[in-house]
């Protein structure tokens, strides 16, 4: 028996058959139930866990159709349009679903109809029924008002005027109903009867292309999965070629025998359709996920879907049959690293117009970085000299992600470089210094109320051993009560 808190009282949210046999009901207070049967076992409801379970079931239902939607807290919509013939017709598909759920230990009721509303009613009030097209009215007529998916207060007011079944509502004139009970009642009615289309929004975006293979004997080994990926990718290649596209994101869905679904996605930085390369990418991904994927008793359905595709431009090979494109090698290499180590494993620096050193270079993942198509300009010719500063500022070769505070005991001049400093608990004597280079914060980027970010005075420092550093002092002496702080920001060669 599961309890939940409603208002100020603990009430029964759900209960099993044995509790039902004791004449306990949903919505009854826990205190009352305890008084009737002191030995009942009460568990606190956990809506989060219920939701997770429902989502994993939805994942599993993906094997029947890619269009699976969640319905409230305890239902799933499966849009099986065009899918039933794959399972030998509607009846055998429904039986298959029910038997598989039964073997997984779930008590499931299912209904199949031409409209979501009718299927909902059939599942909840006429178990395991397949409603042929056009017989929705006959199905709904004897059912109580709850079968219409209407709000409880509308239901209560309908019942108060004597309309107790869906059939009675259908027989009543529409205009007064709409006026008295609102549009939503008629909307639900029309949707159930198929007069209005109702869209079921699927949980996951539907893949434009997917190929799958049902296996009589479940597979467990990674090698076998990879081989299967290659087979599926070969099938996929023909489809991609027909569309003139290549895959940018691919997902591999592994349906375990006991209902768990593993979803493995890889991204590519260029459109891809070569089965061998797709296999390689999944090889890396599977190697990285080795611990996370539990094959259990094996996978009995493997599906490879193209989540997003892009136009694939063919390349002209030369007479030797080789295309010269070094970028493709690197793209594949970056994809493989990415498949194994995550999206930001290969980074590409992109110059940004900014004075702030840390903002002046953005690190983008390789796949997102703009690919340069045109070759770089030849030096000397057509070079735009106007935009180049005459004095190029000296910049370090390594920059700390966050500037590290250093201790500066004294400076010769208030605005000058330090004479020595302590960084990471070691003392450095400054032999030579250049600077300051003043870099003001970008006021146009600052949020309101934070305008007083102090300026930075950067110094190039050479210590007594010849190492060169980039330090800065944040703020000015005398500008505020607190003494300005010093930071280590970079290292020169």
């Amino acid at each position, binding site marked *: 028996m599961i309890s939940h808190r409603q208002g100020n009282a603990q009430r029964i949210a759900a209960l099993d058959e044995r509790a039902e046999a004791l004449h306990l009901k949903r919505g009854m207070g826990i205190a009352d139930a305890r008084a009737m049967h002191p030995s009942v076992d009460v568990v606190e409801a956990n809506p989060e866990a219920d939701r997770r379970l429902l989502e994993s079931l939805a994942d599993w239902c993906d094997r029947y159709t890619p269009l699976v939607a969640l319905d409230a807290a305890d239902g799933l919509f499966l849009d099986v349009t065009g899918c039933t013939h794959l399972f030998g017709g509607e009846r055998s598909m429904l039986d298959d679903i029910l038997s598989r759920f039964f073997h997984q230990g779930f008590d499931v009721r299912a209904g199949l109809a031409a409209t979501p509303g009718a299927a909902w009613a059939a599942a909840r009030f006429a178990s395991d029924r397949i409603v042929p097209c056009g017989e929705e009215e006959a199905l709904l007529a004897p059912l109580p008002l709850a079968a219409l998916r209407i709000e409880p207060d509308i239901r209560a007011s309908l019942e108060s005027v004597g309309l107790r079944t869906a059939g009675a509502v259908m027989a009543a004139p529409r205009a007064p109903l709409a006026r008295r009970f609102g549009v939503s009642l008629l909307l639900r009615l029309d949707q159930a009867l198929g007069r209005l289309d109702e869209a079921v929004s699927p949980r996951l975006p539907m893949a434009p292309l997917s190929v799958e293979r049902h296996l009589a004997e479940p597979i467990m080994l990674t090698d076998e999965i990879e081989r299967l990926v290659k087979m599926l990718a070969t099938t996929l290649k023909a489809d991609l070629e027909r569309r003139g596209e290549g895959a940018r994101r691919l997902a591999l869905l592994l349906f375990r025998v006991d209902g768990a679904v593993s979803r493995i996605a890889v991204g590519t930085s260029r459109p891809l359709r070569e089965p061998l390369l797709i296999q390689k990418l999944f090889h890396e991904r599977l190697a990285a996920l080795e611990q996370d994927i539990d094959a259990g008793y094996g996978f009995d359905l493997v599906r490879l879907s193209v989540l997003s595709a892009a136009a694939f431009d063919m390349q002209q090979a030369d007479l030797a049959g080789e295309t010269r494109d*070094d*970028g493709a*090698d*690197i793209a594949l*290499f*970056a994809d*493989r*690293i990415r498949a*194994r*180590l995550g999206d*930001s*494993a*290969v*980074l*590409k*620096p*992109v*110059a940004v117009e900014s004075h702030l*050193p840390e903002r*002046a*270079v953005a*690190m983008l993942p*390789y796949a997102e970085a703009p690919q*340069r198509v045109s070759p*770089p300009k030849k030096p000397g010719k057509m070079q735009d000299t106007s935009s180049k500063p005459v004095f*190029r500022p*000296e*910049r*370090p*070769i*390594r*920059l*700390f*992600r966050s500037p590290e505070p250093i201790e500066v005991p004294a400076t010769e001049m208030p605005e000058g470089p330090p004479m020595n400093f302590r960084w990471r608990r*070691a003392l450095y*004597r400054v*032999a*030579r*210094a*250049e600077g300051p280079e003043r870099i003001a914060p970008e006021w146009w980027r600052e949020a309101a109320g934070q305008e007083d970010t102090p300026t930075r005075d950067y110094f*190039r420092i*050479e210590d*007594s*051993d*010849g*190492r*060169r*550093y980039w330090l800065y002092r944040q703020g000015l002496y005398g500008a505020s009560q607190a003494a300005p702080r010093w930071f280590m920001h*970079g*290292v*020169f*060669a």
Partner: protein
Amino acid sequence: MTPLDSSAALWNPREHNRNNCEWKLTVMATSAVARETVFALRRQIAKIEGTLPERLEAPAGAAPVDAPRNPTADVTLQNPTADIPPQDLTIVRRGLAVAPPDAFLRTGAEGLDTALSGGLPKAALSEIHGAATRDAGAVAGFALSLVSLILKQGPRLPVLWIGTAEIFREAGFPYARGLHALFGIEPEQLLFSEAPRLLDALWTAEEAARMTALAAVILEIRGSPQRLDLTATRRLHARAQNAGRPVFLLRQAGEPEPTAAPVRLVLSAAPSAPRETIAGPLAGSIGRPAFTVSIGKSRTALPGQFTLEWNPDERSFEERRTGEERAANPVPVVSASRRGKDPAAASGAVLAFPAVGSPAPGDQPSPGERAAHRRPRRAG
């Protein structure tokens, strides 16, 4: 000394560095007979190792300069190098003997190139060490200047820099603006890979090492991890050899360990020369980056130390003359004043090439040196 003695010195268990052993052998092999015996032994060693022995004449003048700095070559005390004419020194190369002449990357610094008998191997793993994490700037700078030399000659290919998250946190992330300004490497040519674990970094490096579409691979590691052993480096080296591309293994704060890399250089920063202006060197300024390179391990080279200066405009190395050479060739480092007066006291600290490891400003020249640069002024 009999050949038996020399072979005993060769296999002295105290000595692990083969370079030192070779050095000793060559130094001792003064007479023709002894040399014959030594080469017979060499051939035997080469036969056991299964490599081709090759004789190479050492370039004149290269070895004696380095000889006194070899700390472990205690034999040199018994046989002073001054007695041996440089032409008699013979270095035997092994393993790399079959490599074509363009297999070496010439650094442009003559002393280093001749010591490495042609430069750094292009298709190989090269180790570049820094003594402490604070040397990361010098180590990375030297590796990048080598990459810059490669890019100057070759096609525009990207460079991949792989590092563990630890090293990028401790030593700073490579900054593309600075790399462009100093080494002429465009941001588009740079790729970085930050691996959370060393294992991932090694895997990435192995995958990258066999790609011909990369100009060079830099793998940066901190400390002396166990994973980076002989086997791991041998794999990297073999892949680099097959691909014909260099892999630079930067090890910050690491101990020299047995690895498969044919060359190991130990880097530290050298005080830079002041900036050159029309009016002469600008006092107190920080000029071009300078590095102190010592050869930690090489199959061909003798241990030596060189101070190189990187010229970002030319993208080339210049070797800085060492202290002894300057003493041997006295030049007035402070030009004679035209007005016939002594230069101002403050400019007395200006030394064009300060001695390695000593702070330049405030350092008074030794009395001998001062006499040396006073002399021409008196004459004029």
